[in-house]
């Protein structure tokens, strides 16, 4: 309550813009990331249009930007589209919406603290995102040569002013995340309410806690690598630039990949562990049943985080690193499937024999489980270095990452938004609109991403601006070849035969992707409509157990209007001795069963 003396006379600017209140900062993160989500999605649809109808006039921006080419985009611009799509979705949407928005809003509320440990640092962690937004925008707007190097920015191809801006943007994101992670770790360790032991924390907080550890240890490596590439690019040093005809750096391009993936693989867990935590809480709440295997769940996410640091090489099985390393990284990668499997089985155990309230957040949470099963299973073939050979850098990888990060994390994020919206804004979201939104998103996302697996095992490489040129190239090559080849009769081209299949699948995927984009209208209407006109929510509309539901909706400055004291774990649903089917963490101990219900024993 450091601000209690002077927060009364705060002006609008200090209350809503440069606020040090964790809820306001979290909401700022939420709105910023949702806007970036819409932008990143628009880029995805633009590149899907190019893939389905290659080199045709691009609607809207094509006519503005590429008037001389009749509205068709350039191959370089296509590369910029997927580079920015990935950079925005990863660094401006998923990481900040989980850690920045949900982490900020939920950590103090769920552990019973009045704010973060370092409110000013917390405010800075949001405002450092703004230079990142600006740098990334500048990078995209760099004339003639934008960020067309893929989000992995592999040297020596990545170069030029666009890269400098891109790197500066990422360094700012890294600084923001580091500030956040220090804050989350300190808050969770130091500021828990009386009685809130570590093993009474909800899974959401465990997810955030482990994520913060990952960020604290992995980000310094990325930041160092970004600075090294910045020096290469801006000052002509030679950390990663190789000795070759095109450059004389004497550096090692593989070194960048190692350093980049040393962060960016743990980043995949940074992008899913908090969602796993939120989904665990939502499943347990709406199954009206204690979370199955609370401690195994905690050990699993810790296991995922620990192993997560020694699996980065699976992005590099065929990169030219020592193939013996492929063996060790293959083993650690295959083993990481195990804690993931344990988590899925425990979620299914939570649903089994439950009393299921299929509300919108519950449907999104169940779909997280259903989709994570696909994303997890499709990880097994590519964890094996041998099977990765044909699948690497094909659409199989695109399908895999989108099943984990879109169908997984983003569905978890939607579940979280529908679930905690009443707490954040004090009003309920509309259930009918929510269910329509869920149903259509679920159908279209599977339509979009599932067939990409098929393209993948066909051997269709990713990051191709079109497959038309491939066909033409092969045919043109054939006519030249008749002159040289001794037996140049009717050649049949393997890729040309596949070409028809690739084209209709790509068209189908694009229709689904556009559909998926359009149906988000239901979410936008629901979200903004209900901020103003939603049904008023009481303190605990979902009859949930955790501490945030004991506060008013929305909670005032300092969060709790009483000192919460925790008596039990977060998942005491359907306790046989309790009157109702839920027992809040702050409810006084049940007299008769005081012995059995302490903690969240498994």
């Amino acid at each position, binding site marked *: 309550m450091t601000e209690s003396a002077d927060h009364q006379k705060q002006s609008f600017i200090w209350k809503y813009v440069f606020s040090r209140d964790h809820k306001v900062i979290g909401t700022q993160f939420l709105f910023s990331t949702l806007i970036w989500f819409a932008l990143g999605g628009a880029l995805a649809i633009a590149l899907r249009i190019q893939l389905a109808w290659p080199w045709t006039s691009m609607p809207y921006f094509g006519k503005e930007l590429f008037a001389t080419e009749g509205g068709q985009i350039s191959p370089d611009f296509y590369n910029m589209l997927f580079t920015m799509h990935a950079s925005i979705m990863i660094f401006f949407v998923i990481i900040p919406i989980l850690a920045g928005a949900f982490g900020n809003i939920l950590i103090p509320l769920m552990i019973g603290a009045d704010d973060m440990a370092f409110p000013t640092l917390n405010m800075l962690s949001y405002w450092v995102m703004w230079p990142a937004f600006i740098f990334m925008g500048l990078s995209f707007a760099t004339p003639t040569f934008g960020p067309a190097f893929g989000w992995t920015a592999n040297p020596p*191809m990545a170069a030029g002013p666009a890269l400098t801006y891109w790197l500066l943007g990422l360094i700012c994101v890294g600084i923001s995340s580091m500030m956040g992670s220090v804050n989350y770790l300190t808050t969770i360790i130091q500021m828990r309410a009386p009685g809130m032991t570590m093993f009474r924390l909800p899974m959401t907080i465990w997810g955030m806690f482990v994520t913060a550890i990952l960020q604290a240890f992995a980000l310094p490596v990325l930041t160092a690598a970004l600075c090294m590439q910045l020096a290469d690019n801006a000052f002509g040093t030679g950390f990663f630039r190789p000795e*070759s005809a095109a450059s004389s750096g004497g550096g090692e391009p593989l070194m960048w990949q190692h350093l980049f993936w040393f962060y960016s693989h743990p980043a995949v867990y940074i992008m899913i562990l908090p969602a796993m935590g939120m989904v665990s809480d939502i499943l347990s709440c709406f199954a*009206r049943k204690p979370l199955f295997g609370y401690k195994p769940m905690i050990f699993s996410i810790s296991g995922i985080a620990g192993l997560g640091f020694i699996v980065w090489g699976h992005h590099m099985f065929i990169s030219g690193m020592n193939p013996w390393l492929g063996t060790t990284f*293959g083993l650690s990668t295959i083993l990481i499937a195990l804690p993931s499997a344990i988590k899925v089985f425990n979620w299914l*155990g939570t649903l089994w024999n439950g009393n299921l309230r299929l509300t919108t957040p519950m449907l999104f949470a169940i779909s997280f489980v259903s989709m994570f099963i696909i994303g997890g299973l499709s990880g097994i073939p590519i964890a094996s270095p041998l099977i990765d050979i044909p699948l690497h*850098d094909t659409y199989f990888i695109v399908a895999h990452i989108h099943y984990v990060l879109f169908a997984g994390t983003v569905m978890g994020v939607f579940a979280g938004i529908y679930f905690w919206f009443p707490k954040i804004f004090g009003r309920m979201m509309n259930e009918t609109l929510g269910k329509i939104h869920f149903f259509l998103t679920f159908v279209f996302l599977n339509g979009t991403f599932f067939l990409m697996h098929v393209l993948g095992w066909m051997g269709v490489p990713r990051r191709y601006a079109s497959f038309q040129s491939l066909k033409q190239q092969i045919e043109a090559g054939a006519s030249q070849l008749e002159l040289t080849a001794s037996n140049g009769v009717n050649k049949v081209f393997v890729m040309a035969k596949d070409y028809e299949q690739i084209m209709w699948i790509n068209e189908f995927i694009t229709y689904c992707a556009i559909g998926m984009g359009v149906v988000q209208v239901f979410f936008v209407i629901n979200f903004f409509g209900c901020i103003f006109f939603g049904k008023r929510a009481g303190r605990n509309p979902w009859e949930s157990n955790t501490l945030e539901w004991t506060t008013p909706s929305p909670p005032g400055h300092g969060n709790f209007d009483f000192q919460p004291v925790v008596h039990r774990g977060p998942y005491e649903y*359907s306790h046989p001795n309790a009157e109702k089917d839920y027992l809040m963490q702050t409810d006084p101990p049940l007299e008769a069963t005081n012995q059995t219900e302490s903690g*969240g024993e498994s």
Partner: protein
Amino acid sequence: MNRFWSILFFLVPILGVGICLMSAFGIYPLEHTWLPADISESGKDIDFAFNLVMWIIGIVFVGTGLILAMSMWSYPFNADRKATYSHGNTKLEIIWSVIPGVVLIGIFIFQAVYWERQKINQPVVTLADGTTALQQPIVKVVARKFGWRFWYAGLDGELGTSDDFVLENELHLPTDEPLVVQLESEDVLHSFFLRNLRIKQDLIPGKKQFAWFTIVSEKIEQDKVYDILCAELCGWGHARMNGRLYPKTKSDFQEFLKLNDLKQNGFAMNEAEEK
């Protein structure tokens, strides 16, 4: 309503596995969408490993989907009853940790053997004096924006000699013998991707690498040409960086070498013959 959602979620594994089977068995409209035709000696092992893993994950996919759908179908909300009060089951936790663990490690060990052959153990040849040495490459592949340049060792079978010759985007190789190719990049990262040989290897500027394989003549259809793709983003022309592979019998390949030798190094001889 719970039954509707239950069916929706169960449709995911049903349609998912259905699509995989349609692709695998070439059922309309997904014919020609399974793994590309294999023309290599070692490709069958990669394909077998892939198929095996696909069967395992397909079974798990349907099994978990069934449990998910059944719990949604069977336990709709009823205010009059309470859910089972259980925090977990240690025996179950052990079972569902150990079984997947064994299966996963089994998959790993199974594939590691082939990985070693595919990427670690470069073929060796026995020299005249009885010692063994690494087999020398028959072609040097030089990737650059945005094409493939193939340096052939020529008739003497040795790279870096005066009878070497170069072809752009055309890779002619003999069948039925173990081959080694040397891989280099002139400018940025590329990836040498031969779908039908199950070969993919990134090329790094400033680094010499090797790939090895055997093309099996029986698996080749008459006069078929196979594509060579770049699988690592290299710039705006990435999608156009396509070469072609022409498998040839041993005698055809010798003829091809001679023809090109004449073209490149034998003008004088050529003219003399014509006279």
